[in-house]
């Protein structure tokens, strides 16, 4: 998608992007280059001995059946987290955008949970869900529900998906709300959701106008689920039981920051990076075609 109307001038726009590009080069591209280089080497953590090994790290990864399993698991996890957090957020945003009493209050209540420090959020989940000391976990067990995510893989996966999605709902809510706010009132009024007809109107009138926000959030949520969920998973299940909740990023962090396997973790980062780039590029194509027509 391109804009038709454009301003003339070359030096001015270049001046405008320069600061961003400069930071990008220094803090992203340079490190990324180093990561790609490291992915083709075998090195000790201190970088004292480094040998070039070509594609060996990648070969090792893809011949490991356990790694291939975690690719599938990661896809499920990312999609589940994105759909859950975006769905809930959109529903809440549509309601909070209506002309109802107390909407200022609702908004504050729905936005500020985003500010809970991750370190505390992790503790909270344990205090809530832990089978033995958690408020909800204990309640479930007392009432005959065999709640034990330390040994039940399915429960463990649900727990990490739920906790990861929870953290992202506020984020999505803010942007959906902002997106809805920039849609002309008349369109929203026309699409007031009164039953099935309202849903149809919402889908045909509001949703297309919300598409830029939706696209933006799909990218952000996928990236979030793929990269920023390490802390949550580590605090709750550490990837277990077995490998039930070990997503790719858990493995990258563990190999990189705990096992200090520079080459192996760099190779995994490169794979992860390529994966997300491909996914977003596909979306980019797909969505711009739809918005164009």
């Amino acid at each position, binding site marked *: 998608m391109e804009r038709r109307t454009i301003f003339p001038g070359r030096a001015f726009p270049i001046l405008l992007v320069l600061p961003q590009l400069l930071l990008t080069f220094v803090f992203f591209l340079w490190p990324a280059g180093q990561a790609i280089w490291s992915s083709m080497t075998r090195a*000790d953590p*201190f970088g*004292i001995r480094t040998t070039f090994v070509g594609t060996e790290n990648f070969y090792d990864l893809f011949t490991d059946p356990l790694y291939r399993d975690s690719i599938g698991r990661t896809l499920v996890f990312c999609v589940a987290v994105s759909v859950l957090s975006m769905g809930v957020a959109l529903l809440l945003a549509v309601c909070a955008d209506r002309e109802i009493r107390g909407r200022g209050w609702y908004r504050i209540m729905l936005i500020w949970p985003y500010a809970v420090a991750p370190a505390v959020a992790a503790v909270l989940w344990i205090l809530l869900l832990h089978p033995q*000391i958690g408020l909800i976990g204990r309640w479930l067990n*007392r009432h005959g529900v065999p709640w034990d995510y330390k040994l039940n893989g399915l429960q463990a996966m649900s727990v990490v998906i739920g906790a990861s999605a929870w953290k992202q709902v506020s984020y999505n809510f803010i942007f959906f709300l902002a997106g809805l706010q920039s849609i002309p009132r008349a369109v929203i009024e026309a699409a007031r959701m009164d039953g099935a007809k309202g849903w149809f109107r919402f889908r045909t009138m509001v949703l297309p106008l919300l598409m830029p926000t939706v696209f933006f959030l799909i990218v952000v949520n996928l990236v979030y689920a793929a990269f920023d969920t390490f802390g949550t998973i580590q605090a709750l299940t550490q990837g277990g*039981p077995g490998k039930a909740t070990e997503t790719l990023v858990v493995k990258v962090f563990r190999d990189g*920051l*705990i096992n200090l396997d520079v*080459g192996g973790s760099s190779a995994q980062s490169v794979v992860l990076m390529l994966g997300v780039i491909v996914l977003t590029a596909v979306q980019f194509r797909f969505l711009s075609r739809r918005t164009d027509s």
Partner: protein
Amino acid sequence: MHRRTLLAGAAALAASPAALPATAWAQAASKTKVVFWHAMTGANGDEINRIARDFNASQSGVEVEPIFKGSYPETLTAAIAAWRAGQAPHIAQIYEVGTGSMLAAGPAVKQVWQLAQDTGLKIDPATYLPAVRGYYSLVDGRMASMPFNSSTGVMWYNKDAFEMAGLDPEKAPVTWAEFATAARALKEKWAVPTMAKSGGQELMATTTSWFAWIQLEEYSAIHNLPFATKADGFEGLDTELKFNAAPQVKQLQMLLELARDGAFKYTGRDNTPDPVFYSGQTAIGFGSSAGRADIVRNAKFKWAAAMLPYDPAVIQQPNNTIIGGASLWTMTTPTRKPEEYKAVAQFLQFLAQPENDTLYHQHTGYVPVTLGGYELSQKQGYYEKNPGADIAIKSLTRGTVTENSRGLRLGRLPEIRNIVYEEVEKALQGQQNAQAALDSAVARGNRVLREFEKSVRT
């Protein structure tokens, strides 16, 4: 106008913290500064600050500055990043499972024996508990890093629960067979769902923290079984895991059977099961001796500590247990001057003095690392006032240290533990038997060891 003042305020705020370090540095300019990166939080973090204050007050030439650098893995990562940038701290606290990586760090560190050679630091390895210094020494006995906070695996038990189950609360199980009998009795008579006493809590007879460390690494050490070849890795990087032998399989098998019968419950990895014991939901909980402070403060029942059980069919005279915790490594930078290393040596010597060692032991849940520190605590009557506080030391000093009970010298040990957890969890879910679980853990762990070997060999 309104907006402008807001921004100006932001800029002023932004500027102020930057100005602070400069003043802090100015004060200490005349002294040799020793930067000490650590991973201690809460009261233990305060204790590090207390030690630094005491040391700084004890002399006038050196100023130790302790800095918190996150969890153990984060501190290690920070130290590596800093060393690569030529900004390493003088001292870094590194957890015991990182010892393998640090020993392969070559020029990045100055091992204790080198430091002693260069600075005249007087550190006699013989003054340390053998089980403690062994973990951090080379095969020939030269010390590589300075033992610091150390603990070992112990068995905590709930005396009230023992009484209710008709067990003698003054007699903890000594062998694994006795443990299994006790576990079943506790399951029958104490961990009953209808029990009014439980206050709506789910009770479980027994559980364990640190499954990989306590049920496998400690188990192997106590029974004088090799965890890995080449003297548990001390004698070569080409070491291979050996913990799938008959006795270890039997131990796992026993736990699996107890779990099946509801007399043992798996409640998570590492130390996450700790609260299950002090909240009173389990009668026996294996854990680190360092968890004592937490139990003292939180448990609302009578409890005691005992040494880890052993199996007389495997060994008659059980070995010492091995340590967990961390040690202090001296790090280098290209511009570090000899007097800075001297200052480091001075601080390490301060830590090694019995009175300081014993103070640290009594203020935290860690064991004294020197024999002198232990004797001093005994003389002061500390263990009479705090019964059970010396179980860890007794357990560490039992028998003579063998090559199987000195500790583990394996690269990427955290990953090996992780593999053990994964395979054991699969066994507990009934997906594989004990033998298959340990065979698989050994095979996967060996691949990790080979990868590490290749990465540190020139």
